[in-house]
């Protein structure tokens, strides 16, 4: 690329399509190295944790160091199950989208631990304000798969009456806030929610997730200012999956050493964690939740991970990053790593894993059959057209009544 003045700077990734994947510039500290401070530590004292990387699972798949949450094998197996289900569901939904069964889909492949482990470390009553790649939370919280699918195919049973793009779930009963397509808007909202929890004297907290790319939004700054000023009980997660559609993380990160470091400017507690390490995500969320619940304020967590698949079904990563980059990701695959950890503990084996995958695959296929029995976007039945005019306000005013009449519904 030519440029007129070498002082004008546009960062670029190390490699592009056609190049050999190369992550040699990424420093990976050994698992178990990071110290785990008391949850009441002052934010600025967590600066080293913003620059390091909290890792629990080592290269032999053993849990090491102070951050090991020491979970029962049952909890680990449950986590593995939710992650496998997330992956199986995503794979099936992608196929269905390619068959024209839905307009759009977004997978979370490679990022299952970020959502599932966090959801399991939170209380089910805690309010989550996710972005569009944390469907793992829904599985961890026991959301009915048929209901999720009915939303994605916008049929007559879609709990959002066909008003939202697929994957933009809402589940109030499960304390899962509405997902917006406008990025980072939910970050300061989560802080407001957390403030209200404190205002009402409840122990509930809030957690939110954005991508590293959208941390460039003004709402990121607003959220951190609010969280810091009002010492809100909230966990602010930045999922650094390296790619914002086609844009590499350096376009949002600039010269900041890490995304977690940005929290230091606000005096918040900051953790940078291995997002493909179920135990690290669990432990970090548990720490931040305990800190928030005890009134010590917010934590910014950067989950270092890799978006192993396309941004969405409308995206083709071969246009901007080398093929096979995901397989070279130095932090591995979150499902494989937890699986191997369990096997190492003697609490799991390949046969059981295969059986689990088969069982979940059958569940997803059967769920889709049931979902489809309530209609599809293509063939209906959908929510009645008249429902388009509902829920704009508590009661439709004369304009909406007239417009509904104009449409003849």
């Amino acid at each position, binding site marked *: 690329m030519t440029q007129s003045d070498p002082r004008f700077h546009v960062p670029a990734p190390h490699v592009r399509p056609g190049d050999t994947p190369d992550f040699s510039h990424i420093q990976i500290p050994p698992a178990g190295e990071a110290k785990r401070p008391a949850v009441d530590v002052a934010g600025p004292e967590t600066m080293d944790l913003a620059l390091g990387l909290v890792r629990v699972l080592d290269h032999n798949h053993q849990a090491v160091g102070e951050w090991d949450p020491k979970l029962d094998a049952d909890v680990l197996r449950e986590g593995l199950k939710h992650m496998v289900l997330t992956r199986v569901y995503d794979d099936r939904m992608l196929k269905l989208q390619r068959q024209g069964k839905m307009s759009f889909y977004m997978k979370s492949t490679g990022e299952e631990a970020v959502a599932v482990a966090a959801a399991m470390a939170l209380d089910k009553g805690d309010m989550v304000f996710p972005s569009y790649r944390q469907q793992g939370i829904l599985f961890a919280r026991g959301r009915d798969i048929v209901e999720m699918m009915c939303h994605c195919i916008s049929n007559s049973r879609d709990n959002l009456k066909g008003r939202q793009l697929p994957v933009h779930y809402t589940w109030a009963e499960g304390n899962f806030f509405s997902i917006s397509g406008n990025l980072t808007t939910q970050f300061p909202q989560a802080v*407001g929610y957390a403030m209200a929890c404190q205002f009402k004297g409840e122990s509930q907290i809030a957690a939110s997730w954005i991508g590293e790319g959208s941390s460039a939004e003004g709402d990121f700054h607003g959220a951190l200012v609010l969280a810091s000023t009002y010492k809100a009980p909230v966990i602010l997660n930045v999922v650094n999956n390296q790619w914002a559609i086609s844009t590499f993380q350096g376009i949002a990160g600039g010269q900041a050493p890490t995304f977690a470091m940005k929290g230091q400017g606000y005096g918040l507690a900051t953790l940078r964690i291995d997002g493909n390490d179920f135990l690290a995500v669990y432990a970090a969320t548990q720490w931040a939740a305990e800190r928030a619940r005890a009134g010590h304020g917010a934590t910014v967590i950067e989950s270092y991970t890799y978006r192993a698949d396309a941004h969405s079904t409308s995206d083709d990563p071969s246009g901007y990053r080398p093929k096979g980059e995901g397989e070279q990701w130095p932090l591995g695959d979150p499902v494989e790593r937890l699986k191997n950890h369990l096997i190492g503990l003697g609490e799991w084996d390949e046969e059981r894993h295969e059986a689990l995958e088969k069982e979940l695959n059958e569940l997803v296929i059967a769920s889709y059959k049931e979902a489809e029995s309530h209609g599809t976007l293509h063939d209906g039945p959908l929510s009645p057209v008249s429902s388009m005019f509902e829920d704009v306000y508590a009661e439709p005013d004369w304009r909406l009544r007239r417009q509904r009449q104009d449409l003849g519904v």
Partner: protein
Amino acid sequence: MAKMNMIQALNSALDNMMEKDPNVVSFGEDAGYFGGVFRVTAGLQAKYGLDRSFDAPINEAAIVAMSIGMAAKGMRPVAEIQFADYIFPGIDQIVSELSRLRYRTAGQFTMPVTIRTPCGGGIRGGQTHSMSPEAFFTHIPGIQVIMPSNPYDAKGLLISAIESEDPVVFFEPKRLYNGPFDGDPGKALSSWGAHPKGEVPEDHYTLPIGKAQIVREGSELTIVTYGTLVHVAEAAVAASGVDAEIIDLRTLVPYDIETVSKSVNKTGRCIVAQEAPRTSGFGAELAAQIQEDCFYALEAPVKRITGWDTPYPHAHEWSYFPGLNRFTTAIRDILEA
């Protein structure tokens, strides 16, 4: 009943609501300890405590977002945006989030949020403290838009806004805070003390959202307006000696088409007046709807009185402001048409 200016009436509404409902909180830039640059929230922190009335950082997007989060947790936030001109950093949170949450969640989350903001010119505020940006907000499905023209309406409508289950952008014409204004800047300031609408009950009361008020009944002409220009219209009608009906819309979304159509069908002539720039202003919506609903009764084209399509100037404020002359000229023209 007590004599109140608009600031006191709004303060009284907040006071009543904070006393009545522990989920009502008030916040904004300088709106806590100090009570707001226009003093609308004065005394609330002292009376209700820091957690009910507090200062917010200078970030309008964060102020709106905080309101959304709080409303999701069952609170009724009342956020102050210091000047309507400053509301734009918060526009994404209003347009993409606040307005749509009921809809996009199919009623699982509702947003009883009130955003109060002083608007309009006539106070030598220059282009960044004089805007009337109400039309932007009337174009957002899911938002209700209110602009009162006097203390009595301001209190009743603010209470209705806070009690509403849907979000409201509540514009306070700041030129009217301390007294009615007939459009003549050369005259001594008048106070609300002598105005019938300056009589305001101290107790809780509501006025219906979506109901206009006929300020003056008349037969020759209908003037539809809101906010500061209601008073200019009254002065102009008195000066012209014309028997005009003046309608104060009070609510812009949803506006009271019934009262407007009935009046225009009776008089056959209509002027719509707004302080905001002309193009795509709320007057354009009114004119179009009146034309649809009253076409066969109209004896002249609907006429618009508006600000110019320029930013609100500082030095030439009174050439920009749609004052008495613009009204009397328009009245003469439409009667001759």
